[in-house]
């Protein structure tokens, strides 16, 4: 943003609502022309508005969710009875690796960021996300990484080393060929994309908030996305480094993880889980934000214990980084290591419990409006608390050692991730679908979706606890009848069928409601945050006039005399920059226009990343088009120079 023209702004620019230099319709036309990203084939590759990119992110992430779910269904069919040969062992290895990698890297993190991209600028009361071109670039990169992985899979080169790809299994000796390389490079793609989005969201929340939205008035989803983004910035480089070191071991014969040459295989696990455990909270924390928004809206009261909820999110963010070794209890650690990480792993339950109690108190003291978003949140309570309890059990070294790498762990993390993230996410979709599309989802189909998914989920994953306690290891291709695991596995497969049916109801609901659902209006739920202060779907400029806020629940306390922001040009993409702590007006910044160069830069990056899997020289050769496209991206345009000169004269 700093490279863009800036103008001074002060609190005198806050003016009472009645006074417009031109008619509202005329002003809206101007804004539409100024902020429109264009239509048509070539414009599609140039669009940079957060609602456009956010929609693409959401749709892409759910496409990967469906693919990951399909892979899960294949696994459940394979395991439905003993000595099944529905899939070959080699293909099964690819399927479970692709399932885990898809869900963790191509769905769970991107979908949370997707909702952040779409909702945060609206919630903050601004016209676009910070660094909009970077936002577009991140989406292209994310899509290319996902496509690369699935093309490899279709060509029977899908990774087959598990979603965390431990060496030495994933090293050059035990995984010849290109399968693990594609996995490692997919990590690079998705991590670069995630880091870019994290930077955008932090900047948007810190610098683009509506006037009056001081730190103590940021919506809880905003806080959650802020914590999430900081966690991404601290955690993701670790896994990008880890996967790059693995690639170097495989491609240019370094020995980072080769003990025979002085490397250390456990180093990989430490670095991976330094990312991997915070990853759970990276996924979970935005979901907590969604839960807080839904509960406040459907209890029709401000959320109980706002400071405690903020503190719990902050504590999750910090303590989440102090637990990674509990994934490595079975590797043989000093007793001190066990004690440290057991203590921290137990303590992380406290902030989560604080949040649950605050939400219960909100519901208890509110006037509940039973709608599908809230019902998904209630489902989340039940499932997440069970997942949290098994998490506390797994923090205990003796139990962890006993059930390590069994289906007990599989059950635990699905309870945490599906219960803790997917249920709130589904609730969030029912909640925000009217804002994004302008139409309501069907409540009846929503209930079908909820019950089928809820029952199916518990049928699928609860028996896995028992399977794990009976000793069934995870990732086994098949098992013998005399193991006694057949019945529980069959029940789990039936549960997966229920879940699939639930998802089909959901897709049908989206399809029919998008086409002919009842019109939503601006604020169908009577919610309090700023995304509901504009049309549904929002115009490309988000708000006719930039809003100001006078409380934590601005739409519930708004008056006709609420000031609005004046002084922004409507013939240029100007936004108001505010101060970090108190959101006081600081200056005006002109945002970039659509550009094809983020797309071309992403293509050049993709060529470099994919090429380097096959030949190290691709790094040198690929750097040339990448440098060219980035240069073109950042090259000052004539209108920007003219604007800057004009502003210089005005100053």
């Amino acid at each position: 943003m700093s490279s863009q023209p800036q103008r001074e702004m002060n609190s005198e620019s806050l003016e009472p609502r009645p006074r417009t230099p031109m008619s509202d319709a005329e002003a809206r036309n101007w804004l539409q022309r100024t902020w429109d990203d264009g239509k048509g084939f070539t414009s599609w590759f140039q669009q940079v508005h957060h609602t456009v990119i956010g929609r693409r992110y959401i749709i892409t992430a759910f496409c990967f969710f469906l693919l990951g779910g399909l892979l899960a269904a294949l696994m459940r069919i394979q395991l439905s009875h003993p000595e099944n040969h529905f899939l070959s062992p080699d293909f099964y290895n690819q399927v479970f690796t692709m399932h885990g990698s898809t869900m963790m890297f191509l769905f769970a993190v991107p979908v949370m960021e997707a909702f952040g991209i779409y909702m945060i600028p609206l919630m903050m009361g601004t016209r676009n996300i910070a660094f909009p071109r970077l936002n577009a670039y991140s989406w292209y990169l994310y899509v290319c990484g996902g496509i690369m992985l699935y093309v490899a899979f279709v060509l029977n080169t899908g990774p087959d080393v598990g979603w965390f790809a431990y060496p030495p299994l994933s090293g050059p000796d035990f995984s010849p060929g290109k399968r693990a390389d594609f996995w490692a490079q997919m990590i690079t793609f998705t991590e670069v994309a995630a880091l870019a989005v994290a930077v955008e969201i932090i900047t948007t929340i810190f610098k683009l908030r509506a006037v009056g939205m001081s730190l103590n008035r940021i919506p809880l989803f905003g806080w959650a996305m802020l914590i999430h983004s900081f966690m991404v910035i601290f955690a993701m480089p670790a896994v990008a480094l880890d996967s790059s070191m693995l690639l170097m071991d495989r491609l240019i014969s370094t020995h980072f993880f080769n003990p025979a040459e002085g490397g250390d295989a456990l180093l990989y696990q430490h670095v991976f889980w330094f990312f991997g455990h915070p990853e759970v909270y990276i996924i979970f924390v935005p979901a907590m934000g969604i839960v807080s928004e839904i509960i406040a809206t459907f209890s029709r009261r401000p959320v109980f214990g706002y400071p405690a909820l903020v503190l719990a999110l902050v504590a999750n963010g910090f303590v989440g980084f102090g637990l990674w070794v509990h994934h490595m209890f079975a590797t043989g650690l000093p007793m001190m290591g066990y004690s440290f990480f057991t203590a921290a792993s137990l303590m992380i339950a406290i902030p989560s419990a604080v949040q649950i109690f605050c939400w219960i108190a909100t519901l208890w003291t509110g006037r509940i409006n039973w709608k599908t978003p809230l019902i998904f949140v209630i489902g989340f309570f039940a499932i997440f608390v069970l997942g949290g309890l098994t998490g506390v059990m797994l923090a205990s070294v003796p139990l962890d050692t006993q059930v390590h790498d069994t289906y007990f762990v599989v059950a635990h993390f699905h309870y945490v991730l599906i219960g803790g993230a997917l249920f709130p996410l589904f609730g969030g979709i029912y909640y925000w679908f009217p804002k994004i599309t302008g139409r309501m989802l069907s409540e009846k189909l929503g209930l079908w979706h909820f019950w089928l998914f809820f029952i199916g989920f518990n049928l699928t994953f609860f028996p896995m606890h028992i399977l794990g306690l009976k000793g069934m290891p995870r990732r086994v291709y098949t098992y013998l009848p005399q193991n006694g695991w057949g019945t529980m596995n069959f029940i789990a497969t039936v549960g997966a069928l229920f879940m699939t049916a639930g998802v089909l109801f959901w897709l049908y609901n989206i399809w029919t409601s998008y086409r002919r659902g009842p019109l939503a209006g601006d604020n169908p739920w009577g919610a309090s945050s700023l995304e509901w202060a504009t049309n549904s779907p929002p115009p490309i400029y988000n708000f006719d006039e930039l809003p100001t806020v006078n409380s934590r629940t601005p739409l519930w306390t708004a008056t006709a005399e609420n000031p609005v922001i004046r002084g922004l040009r409507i013939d240029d993409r100007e936004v108001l920059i505010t101060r970090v702590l108190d959101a006081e007006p600081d200056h005006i910044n002109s945002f970039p226009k659509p550009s094809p160069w983020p797309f071309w830069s992403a293509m050049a990056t993709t060529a470099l990343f994919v090429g380097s899997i096959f030949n190290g020289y691709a790094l040198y050769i690929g750097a040339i088009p990448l440098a060219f496209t980035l240069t073109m991206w950042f090259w000052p345009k004539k209108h920007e120079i003219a604007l800057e000169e004009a502003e210089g004269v005005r100053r």
Partner: protein
Amino acid sequence: MVPSKLSLWYGILIGAAAFAGDQQITYSLVPHACSTGHFYVLYCATGIALLLALSGAAMGGRNLAVTRSASIDGGTRADRSRFMAILGIAASLGFATIILAMAVPRFMLSPCD
């Protein structure tokens, strides 16, 4: 009067920093302690971390007293400062508890096993 931003951020962040520092430093000092028998370095590191976390709570308490007349959901600087002061106290005390929880096993287990 409004507390300084530095003191407010100190209250919020020092507990977390002390927790992270204690975990990393103590863990990396174990080989040294076991090879030399100087176990006091472990206690010193934890003691310092605990004091730092508690200093955050004290700072938060001071900031809270300064903003006694403010409200935590208001729109003024004093209101926002009071909110940050409360966050600081709670965060610092919470992290001090975690530091203590991590230290307790050290009295019962030998770090060298």
